[in-house]
């Protein structure tokens, strides 16, 4: 008999990632932010690892390149924190400056805090997935060597 869990978990992946993205985008003014977004996306991937195994999960590009993604996130965070210094502002200055006209529509505004949070999301996601992948790899190896 086929279990309903694997198809269900696959169906859950994309909605979870979309909710994670929405967490990131609304983080500026409401509950959310980069950290919970990354953690949620990482948990969605963890579910895939548990249900379908390492091989199946690594078919997704984001999962294969999780560690470089964390590096990119790190560069985004450091960049938004310290690039304003080059222009003479204090670190972690917000652009567009408060009071200046911003870009965006409705409740959504584009500013450097969003990039910072996005970097944070990538770091958390990348680290969570890399750690899970390491564990999955070592348990898979132990399975091969086992009695």
């Amino acid at each position: 008999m086929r279990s309903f869990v694997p198809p269900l978990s696959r169906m859950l992946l994309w909605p979870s990632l979309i909710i994670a993205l929405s967490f990131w985008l609304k983080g500026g003014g409401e509950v959310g932010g980069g950290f919970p977004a990354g953690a949620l996306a990482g948990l969605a991937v963890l579910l895939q690892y548990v249900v379908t195994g390492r091989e199946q999960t690594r078919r997704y590009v984001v999962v294969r390149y999780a560690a470089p993604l964390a590096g990119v996130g790190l560069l985004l965070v450091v960049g938004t924190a310290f690039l304003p210094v080059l222009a003479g502002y204090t670190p972690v200055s917000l652009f567009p400056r408060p009071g200046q006209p911003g870009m965006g529509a409705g409740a959504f505004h584009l500013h450097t805090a969003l990039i910072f949070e996005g970097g944070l999301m990538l770091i958390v996601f990348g680290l969570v997935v890399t750690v899970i992948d390491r564990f999955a790899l070592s348990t898979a190896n132990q399975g091969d060597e086992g009695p």
Partner: protein
Amino acid sequence: MPLWGPLLLPWVMACVLAFMDGRRAWVAWLGIASLAASLVCTALLLPQAWSGHPPEFVTGDWPVGVGIRLRADPLSIVYTLVSTAVLLGTLVYEHVAGGITSRSFPSLVVFLGAGLTGVFFTSDAFNFYVFFELAMTAAFALASYGEKARNLRAAFTFVVVNLMGSTLFLTAVVMLYLTTGTLDMQSIVAWGQAGAPYALDVPGTLLLCAFGVKLGFFPFHFWAPAVYRDAGPTVAALLAGALANIGSYGLLRFGADVMPQVLERARPLLEILGASSILYGSVLALSRRDTREVLAYASITQAGLIIAALGLGGREGLAAAVALALAGSVDKTALFLAQDRGGERARRAYSVAAFSTAGVPPTAGFWSKAWLLRAALERGHTWLAGLVVLASILSLLALFRAYQREQWLREGAALHRGTGAVVFALSLALVATGLWPEPLLRAGRDAIAGLGVLP
């Protein structure tokens, strides 16, 4: 030098190093150069920090409370200098000792440096937690360095215990925010002076437990012997020499600076905890046969001395705590690195560091212990003074029993010129400070003088 210099440099370099293969020699040297450069940047901040108006900025030019304040007073600077120097020495040692075996090692050490610098410079309780977690994450990854079964076991113990510590710390920060309505340390000081004297007792107790786990004093020491025994010698030196500084710094910053009323009420408790750590660490160090375990218990004694100094209170006691923490950090690094090798050079370095740990002149450890003794006698705590002397004798016995055993065991694997230079530099620093203690004493006194409110 602007304040963001020593913060920016290790961050950027750690990010760059993360993309490179740390097993290559030039990448390791790049890591060493970044740590050396951030050491120089921090040293350039010295005159400003001592000028009465410590350098500070608020992120993004927001008003305080919205933006995060970063500030470098003398206490922050001396801790940053010593911790970065320890990291630098350890990274050089690991590289010249025969090559780094993991591609992420240099990057992680520089990340640890970035996290520690952030912890010491921040003036915001939650930002303290963020940098603290950055340093801890790097340390978690470092703890498994070597990737043998025993290293992984050490890493697992370390991660589980320290995650519990982090949870306690985060809970304390949340309670501070809910009680005082602010996370900025100086605003918390103002809130504490305004009234409600008992409101901060619970977060204060949680902070004591959280930093107790980091520093590893009795009864929060349980992880230390297992981790220091099973982690590699370099990693043990990093954890005991640099990372444990978060514990003593946190206690000084939150205790003496942010919540002096709570520290005042906690003094009897701190004295009891300090005295029991001193006794427990010294007696168990004597009973162990494995050198690393002896060192781990000696570090519990050291932590006990710091706590006892905090418990004494007053400027003299707190300044002694700073001196003990700084000298102890270099002692432990030198001991962990020297015990790994045999030969004449290693024996000499081990002896110097052991003398310093026990407080035999002319070493840095002697002056810090002498200061604690004087503070104890001035305050009429003769029993504590007796305990300090007893602990010194027991530490000396334990460390040299270990030395005797190791000396017969080790014939090969001597320190060569490179590793010898690192260990030699550390022991030279200890002796030089012993012969000319003025900088250490002044660092302790001025660091405490910069803390503002004290009885």
